[in-house]
């Protein structure tokens, strides 16, 4: 699935190019693998991606970045000192400074009521800011709102649709609303890529929840935006549809669209985002490259399944900070992945010298969810 905002040129060629690059990676890792990797569908691409990821884990090497990923350094949205206080005195945003880089997928994480939707709504013109400035590709959202808004597509959290209109009518309306001349070929492509083409004449109220969400994406894309805001795009959708949605977002990014998404699902941010911003109580707590964040704040644990249960930590292991778990059946060692030495070799040596035998060994890495929970807890 591939969406391009300006046109759909080179659709097939581009897709094949990406897969050829994947193929090279695949063969580089699987020396003995003779299996053909000439895959042509998005689902197949996912499967391949997964294989690479699993292989990287086995080899202990980090997952390779998307080969076609450009360096995202040029800011397309600048938020400076933005604040919003609602009528009742509730301060939803507190002096937010944020830059969104062109072409990236930026995930905005935060607990309920953190200010995610207020921030998105302010940038899109739905909420009046109380202070500060926002510019979209250099256009101020207040003084030059037309130029700024033309670049943005918004997919709201709620399934707000014109229930009685047909899919085609509603996306044609959306395109016109943003001042774009009718372009049947473009809208047809959007609907086909979102697997909505056979539903184009159906009233929206007859569609399923997942289809309605696709309609909202089609509406947001109807005017060929360069920036797409997705407010909780996978809220309330099943796992399969969520994965489909991720594919859609990835395809959009490949076509050059900058994507900002808010989500409750940390897994979603972990899966898709290039950078992650964490917002809590109206303040940006942290913005970082997702991989950096995982590397710097992530912890790794070595879990040893013991032959004989332990009642307490033996004195010779006291310096390692190991913990006993599972009624003495497990020994857990937490270590820093960024340090020069992990201390695993020494620990294993000490275990051997102490006569403590283990029957299995596992390592786990803290997820973005753990990092998120820690950060939010620390700022509360």
């Amino acid at each position, binding site marked *: 699935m591939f969406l391009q905002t300006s046109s759909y040129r080179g659709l097939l060629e581009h897709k094949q190019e990406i897969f050829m690059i994947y193929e090279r990676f695949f063969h580089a890792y699987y020396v003995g693998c003779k299996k053909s990797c000439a895959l042509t569908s998005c689902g197949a691409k996912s499967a391949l991606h997964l294989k690479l990821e699993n292989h990287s884990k086995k080899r202990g090497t980090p997952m390779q970045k998307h080969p076609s990923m450009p360096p995202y350094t040029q800011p397309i949205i600048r938020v400076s000192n933005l604040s919003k206080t609602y009528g009742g005195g509730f301060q939803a945003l507190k002096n937010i400074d944020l830059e969104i880089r062109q072409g990236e997928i930026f995930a905005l994480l935060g607990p309920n009521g953190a200010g995610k939707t207020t921030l998105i709504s302010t940038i899109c013109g739905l909420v009046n800011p109380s202070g500060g400035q926002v510019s979209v590709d250099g256009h101020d959202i207040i003084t030059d709102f037309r130029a700024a808004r033309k670049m*943005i597509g*918004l997919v709201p959290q709620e399934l707000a*649709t014109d229930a*009685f209109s047909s899919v085609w009518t509603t996306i044609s309306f959306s*395109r*016109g609303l*943003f001042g774009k001349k009718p372009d049947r070929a473009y809208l047809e492509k959007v609907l086909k890529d979102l697997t909505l083409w056979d539903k184009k004449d159906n009233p929206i109220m007859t569609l399923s929840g997942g289809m309605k969400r696709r309609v909202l994406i089609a509406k947001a894309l109807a005017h060929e935006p360069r920036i797409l805001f997705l407010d909780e795009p996978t809220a309330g959708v099943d796992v399969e549809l969520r994965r489909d949605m991720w594919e859609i977002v990835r395809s959009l990014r490949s076509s050059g669209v900058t994507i900002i998404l808010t989500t409750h699902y940390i897994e979603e941010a972990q899966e898709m985002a290039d950078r992650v911003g964490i917002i809590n109580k109206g303040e940006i707590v942290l913005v970082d490259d997702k991989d950096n964040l995982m590397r710097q704040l992530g912890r790794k644990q070595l879990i040893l399944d013991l032959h004989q249960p332990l009642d307490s930590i033996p004195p010779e292991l006291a310096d390692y900070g190991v913990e006993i778990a599972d009624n003495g059946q497990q020994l857990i060692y937490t270590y820093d992945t960024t340090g020069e030495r992990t201390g695993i070799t020494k620990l294993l040596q000490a275990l051997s010298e102490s006569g403590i035998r283990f029957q299995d060994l596992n390592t786990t890495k803290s997820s973005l969810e753990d990092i998120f929970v820690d950060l939010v807890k620390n700022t509360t």
Partner: protein
Amino acid sequence: MNFTAVKSIYLFEMARFGRTLWQSLISPVVSTSLYFVVFGAAIGSRIDEIGGVQYGAFLLPGLIMLNLLTQSISNASFGIYFPKFTGTIYEVMSAPVSFLEIVLGYVGAAATKSLILGIMILLTASLFIPIQIAHPFWMAFFLVMTVITFSLLGFIIGIWADNFEKLQIVPLLVITPLVFLGGSFYSIDMLPETWQTVTLFNPVLYLISGFRWSFYEISDVSVGVSLTMIMVFLGLCLLTIWWIFKTGYRLKT
């Protein structure tokens, strides 16, 4: 000026009109026919001429006004309230459109519907009474100004209303009584003097009086006053809408 957006909103609203044709057009025409049958033919035959005009014919301008006022408000208020209710208003508010363009789209469509309705009633009436229009230009002028002004009022009500009850309150409890008491079915000369004075505070009286003058050259108040009143009312509505978009009242938080 984003004319493409204005056209999109306008056509979208007109498409809704097409989908609700029965409710929007046929039902007021049917009710108007009933008025003519009951008040024009049955009861009207026992009422003397008013100002030299048969009662059935005298009714026509008032009936058109009654429908124009209620339908303009109803069309325009529902047109903007429905996107608010379903949440689809987010798209209009985040689009590169100014308040003027939004108003032109929504109010333009509502006014067009009412205008079509007014013409339909006129045509329906011609089946019951001989139509006579003394000043066609002024008749058209009053017709257009009324549908625009009351569509603007409907737009304001649609933004103000936060539930369906409020949406109905103004047309039912304010506009309909004002139209009935504003000389739709009688000349204020027929009222006791005290009530004549009270009626002069009813703004709808001026609209009906001016509109009736354009048909039969008979009026309760002078045409100049009628014209001034409708222009004042139009100005007030525009001022209110300007304030709504400036402050984001009920549209933006």
